[in-house]
C-alpha cells in the first residue's frame, strides 16, 4: 500500500557539509560520543577543524568513513586500526576506480 509521494519542503533539507559536531557524527553513526572521541584520539577519524572536542567539526566524507568503520568493527569484531586499514583500502580502490574511468 503506497500513498502518493510526499513532497519534502525545502526548509527541511539541510546539506551537511564540513560542519558535523561530535554529537551529530555519533548520532548519524549510531554510536556513542565516546566512540567518536576514542577514534579521533586513535587517529582513525580526523576532524576538519577545532582543537577541543566541543569545537570539532567533521566533513560529511568523514561521516561516510566513520559509518564504514563502525560497520567493519561490528561485523567482524575488528580492532579499530584494522577497520581503519580496511576503510583506507576501500577509499583508495574507489579513488583508483574514478581515475581508471579516464582510460
Amino acid at each position, binding site marked *: *500500500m*503506497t*500513498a*502518493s*509521494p*510526499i*513532497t*519534502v519542503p*525545502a526548509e*527541511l*533539507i*539541510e*546539506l*551537511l*557539509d564540513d560542519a558535523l559536531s561530535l554529537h551529530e557524527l555519533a*548520532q*548519524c553513526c*549510531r554510536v556513542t560520543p565516546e566512540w567518536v572521541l576514542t577514534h579521533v584520539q586513535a587517529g582513525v577519524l580526523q576532524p576538519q577543524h577545532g582543537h577541543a572536542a566541543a569545537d570539532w567539526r567533521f566533513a*560529511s*566524507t568523514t*561521516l*561516510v568513513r566513520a*559509518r*564504514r568503520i*563502525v*560497520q567493519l*568493527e*561490528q*561485523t*567482524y569484531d575488528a580492532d579499530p586500526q584494522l577497520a581503519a586499514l580496511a576503510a583506507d583500502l*576501500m577509499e583508495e*580502490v*574507489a579513488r583508483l*576506480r*574514478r*581515475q581508471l*574511468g*579516464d582510460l
Partner: protein
Amino acid sequence: MEFKDYYQILGVDKAAGADAVKKAYRKLARKYHPDVSKAADAPQRMAEVNEAYAVLGDAEKRAAYDTVGAQAWAQGARSGDDVRPPPGWNAGYEFTQGGPAGAGASFGGDGADFSEFFEQMFGRAQAGRHPRGGGAQASMRGEDQHARIELALIDAYLGATRQISLRGARLDEHGHVVPEERTLQVSIPKGVKEGQLIRLAGQGSPGFNGGAAGDLLLELHFTPDARWQIDGRDVTQRLRVTPWEAALGAQVPVTTPEGTAVEVTVPAGSGTGRKLRLKGRGIPAPKADATPGDLYLLLETAVPGAITPEQKAAWQALAKAYPGFDPRTAG
C-alpha cells in the same frame, strides 16, 4: 507476504549455535561486500544477509522467529505471542531496536532495506506491543533512516528531484502491526559533492508515544561516467585536439558538463596530458560564500589516419620538417 527463511539465507542448520551463525554471517558479509563483490545482485544479497543476521544473531529475535516458523506464519501468526500462550510473569518479548548493533545496518542503508516480513515481526511497532516491564510506555524518538542516492554530474550543477521509498511499520488503531511504505519527493539542491550527506529533519521513522520522528539521512554518490572525473567540486573532462591545434594553438569549442558552450584557447605547443583550467566551471557552490569548483580540460591529441596520397604527402613533409625530433628520448 512471504516467510523469510533466514537459516537458508545464512546457510546454517536450525540447530546452529551462536558462533556458527556469526561465522556464517561474517563469511557472507565478506562475499557480498559491495566494494569487492562481482555479483550483480550483491547489494540485495547483502541486505538479505544482514537482515538474516539481525534476527538469528539476536537471542530474543531468534527465539521468536523459531517459535513462529513457516507454518505458523502461513496461518497468520505474526509474533511469538501469537503462537505461544500469552506470557505470564515474564512480561513478553522485549526487542531492542535494530538488532545487534551494526547487523541491522547494511552497507547501503540502515533499516530502509529490511523486508516487510522483518517489519511485521520485529519492527518498531512490534516493540510497542511488548513494552518493557509492562508499565507505562516511555516516548521514544524515532530512529534515523539512511538511504543512498545516485546522481549524474549534471544533477550537481542544476539540482535534481528524487523519489525515495522508505519501508517501515506502524500500529493501526486496533494495535495491529501495519507495514507502511512512505514515498518522499526530495529536491536535491545544486552544489553537492561525492559522499555529501543531506539531512531531512523529521523524515525518518515516526517517534513512539509522542516522541519526535527521527531524521532521514541521504548519502549522495555520483554514478561513474567515463566522460568525467570528479574530485570534490573540481571536474576533469577530456579535450581532444588535432595535432595542428596542439602545435600551433587554437580557439576550440568545448561544452561544459552543464551543457554550456564555451571557447577555449589551446596554447601553442600543448602536448597530450596538458591540463587547462576553466575557473569556476566545476560544480557550483551550494551557498553564496563557498567557492565553486573548477573545470579542468585534459588535452589529448587525436591523430588522424593518413589515407589519401595528399594526406600521406603532408605527413611526410611534416616529418621532414622535424629531422631531429625523437619522442622516445626527449624528456
